[in-house]
C-alpha cells in the first residue's frame, strides 16, 4: 500500500505542488495542493503512515494553501486557503500554514459530511468499546486524548466524532492531535518519543503543535467502534481525580450542544444521539494528573446492555 512515507519526499513535493496529494484519513480522501515548504514538511512528518490514493481518482475535498500575493509576498507574508476555489476564511500569517490545513480539513468535514451526526469531541477505543470526549476548547480534552492513545487506547479522532445513524457506530478520522500552549510540553514529557510538529506561536489559539497519530491507530482507520462511554473531561490544576455519573437526559443535551449538525439531521439526529446515549454510561471527569486519569479510563466498566 502506498503511504506518505513510502512515496518519498521528492514525489510528495511534486504531487503537492502539481496534481495534488490524495491523502486518505478514514472515510475521506482530501486532495491537498500547496508549494509551502512547511506544509510538505509536516505532512511528511505527521501523516507518514496514512495511505495515499493514486493520481486521477475521486477526492472528497479539494483544498489548496498558497501564499497571499501582492504586497503580502514581502510584508508580513500570509497564507490563503481555498476549497475548490472557494475561500471560506480570512488569510492567516504564513507561519500558520499547517495548522490552517488542519482547521480547513475539519471545516470541510463538519460542513459537508451530513451522513453522520458530527460531534466536536475526541474519540478513543479499547477492546472494541469507544469513549466520546466532548468538550469546549481549554478543557484539556486533547491533552488527555494524546496521553490515552499512547497508553493502549486507539485514536479515532481528536476533534470529530462521526456517529453513523444506520448502525450507531463511530467512524475513525485518523489525523494528528492538535495541542495548544502548555499541553505541548505536558505531552512531550508524558509521551517519550512523541512525534510533534514544530510549535507555531502566533496563531489565534496561542501556540499550536500537532502530535502524530499512533501508527496502529492509522492502520485501523477503517474499523468503526461502538460507543460505550461519554466522558466530559475538565482539567483543573491540582484538582483530585473525580468521575461523576451524569443523568442521561442531561448528557444528551450536552452532547447535542457540542454537535455540528444536530439540527440539520432532524429526527435522524435525535434518534442517532438518543441511541448512543442509551448505550453509554456518561460522566463528568475532572483531572490534573494524567497517570491517575488513565487509570480511571482503564477501569471504566462496560455499561450494561
Amino acid at each position, binding site marked *: 500500500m502506498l503511504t506518505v512515507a513510502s512515496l518519498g519526499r521528492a514525489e510528495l513535493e511534486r504531487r503537492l505542488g502539481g496534481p495534488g496529494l490524495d491523502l486518505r484519513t478514514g*472515510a475521506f*480522501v482530501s486532495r491537498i495542493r500547496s508549494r509551502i515548504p512547511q506544509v510538505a514538511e509536516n505532512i511528511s512528518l505527521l501523516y507518514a503512515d496514512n495511505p495515499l490514493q493514486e493520481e*486521477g*481518482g*475521486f*477526492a*472528497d475535498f*479539494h483544498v489548496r494553501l498558497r501564499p497571499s500575493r501582492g504586497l503580502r509576498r514581502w510584508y508580513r507574508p500570509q497564507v490563503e486557503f481555498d476549497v*475548490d*476555489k*472557494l475561500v471560506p476564511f480570512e488569510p492567516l500569517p504564513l507561519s500558520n500554514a499547517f495548522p490552517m490545513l488542519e482547521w480547513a480539513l475539519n471545516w470541510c468535514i463538519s460542513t*459537508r*459530511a*451530513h*451522513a453522520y451526526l458530527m460531534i466536536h469531541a475526541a474519540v478513543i477505543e479499547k477492546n472494541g468499546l469507544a469513549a466520546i470526549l466532548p468538550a469546549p476548547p481549554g478543557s484539556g480534552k486533547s491533552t488527555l486524548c494524546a496521553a490515552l492513545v499512547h497508553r493502549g487506547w486507539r485514536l479515532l479522532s481528536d476533534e470529530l466524532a462521526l456517529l453513523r445513524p444506520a448502525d450507531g457506530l463511530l467512524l475513525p478520522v485518523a489525523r494528528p492531535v492538535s495541542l495548544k500552549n502548555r499541553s505541548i510540553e505536558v505531552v512531550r514529557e508524558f509521551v517519550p518519543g512523541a512525534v510533534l510538529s514544530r510549535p507555531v506561536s502566533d496563531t489565534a489559539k496561542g501556540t499550536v503543535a500537532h502530535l502524530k497519530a499512533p501508527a496502529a491507530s492509522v492502520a485501523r482507520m477503517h474499523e468503526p467502534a461502538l460507543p460505550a462511554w461519554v466522558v466530559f473531561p475538565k482539567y483543573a490544576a491540582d484538582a483530585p481525580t473525580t468521575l461523576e455519573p451524569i443523568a442521561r437526559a442531561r448528557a444528551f443535551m450536552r452532547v447535542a450542544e457540542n454537535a455540528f449538525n444536530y*439540527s*440539520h*439531521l*432532524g429526527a*435522524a439526529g435525535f434518534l442517532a444521539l438518543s441511541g448512543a446515549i442509551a448505550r453509554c454510561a456518561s460522566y463528568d471527569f475532572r483531572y490534573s494528573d494524567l497517570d491517575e486519569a488513565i487509570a480511571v479510563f482503564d477501569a471504566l466498566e462496560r455499561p450494561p446492555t
Partner: protein
Amino acid sequence: MSRLPLLLLALRDPGRVGAFTAADWDLLMRQSASMNLTPSLLALLEERGLLDRVPAPARAQFEWARPLALRHGQAARFEVAAIRTALRPTGLPLVLLKGAAYTMAGLRAGRGRLYSDLDILVPKARLDDAEAALMLHGWAATHHDAYDQRYYREWMHELPPLQHVRRQSNIDVHHAILPETAPVRPDPARLLAAARPVAGEPGLAVLAPHDMVLHSATHLFFESEFDKAFRDLLDLHFLLSEFGAEAGFWEGLVPRAHELQLGRTLFYALRYARRLLDTAVPQAVLDAAAVHAPPAPLLWLMDRLFERALLPPHASCADAFSGGARFLLYLRGNWLRMPPLLLARHLFHKAFLSPRDKPAT
C-alpha cells in the same frame, strides 16, 4: 458550445453517468456542489434507477446531501404553514412563488431543490395588511436603513426582506414579479387571477403553469447576479418538461407571454434551456417565440454572454471570457431594472452615502 460541462451532460442524459470514470465523478460532484445541486442530481438519479451505477465514493457524497434535502423540505413546509396561519386573519390566499411553490405543489422542479427564502405574492393594495399580519407572527424587516426602506418600498417589486426573530427564516413579500422601475410591467392582477389552489392544501395557491414558467424566466433573464443562474435554468427545464406533457400547455405559452409583455424573456428561456439542457420544446412554439427574438447581431452577442453566464459557477465551466460575460450581464440586469438616471443615483447612494450612514461597529 464547444464542449458542455459534465454536469450538463449528466442532466441532459442521466444514463451516461454509467460510463463516467472516477475522475469524471470527481469533477461532476464538484460542479454540482458549486450550485448546491447535489440533492437535485441525487433525486434525478434515483428517479431513473441509476443510483446503483454510482461508484461508492460519489455515492457517499450523495448520502451526505440527503439529510439536508430532507430537512430542507420539512423546514419549508413548516414555514409555509406558519405563514398561512399568520395571513389567515387578512383573508388573503397564500400565493407561493419559486422554490416553495415547487415544493408545495409537488413539482419535479422542487425535488432536492434547496432555497434560502420563501417568496410570496400579495396584491399591492394589501401589502400593509400582509406585512402587519406577518409582523404579529414574528417576522420583522431586516433592512433598517432609511434609504434601503425607500429603495424597496418605492422602486422594487417586494418589501424589504422579512426575517423571523426566532427562527431566522426569511420571507420576500412580492406585489409584482418585476420592479416598478422596469420597462415592462407584467400585470400582477392577471397572475393572481390565474393562480391555482394547491390540491390538499387549503388556503394555498401557486401560479398557473404558464405564469410559473414565465416568472422563472423573468427571474433569470432580468437578473444581474448569475451565481444561481444555472439552478434557475434547471428549474425552467424541469417546469417545461413537466408542464409540456399537459394538454394545451404549449399552445397557450407564447400568447400568455405576449399578454404579460414577456415575449423576449420567454424567447431567451426556451432558447437557452434547449441549447444548454436539451429541453424538449415543439418546433411550432420555438417559431412562435422567435417573433420576439432580438435583432441578429444582438442575439449573436447574447448567445456568447448567456452561454457563459448560465453555466455552473465552477472554475471548470469557465473560460477566459466568463468573467467579462457576467460583468456585462450585471450591467444589463441593472439597466433593465431601473432607468439610467435612477440607477446612477442608486449606485451612487450605495457606494458613497450608505457606508457613511452605517453606525461604526
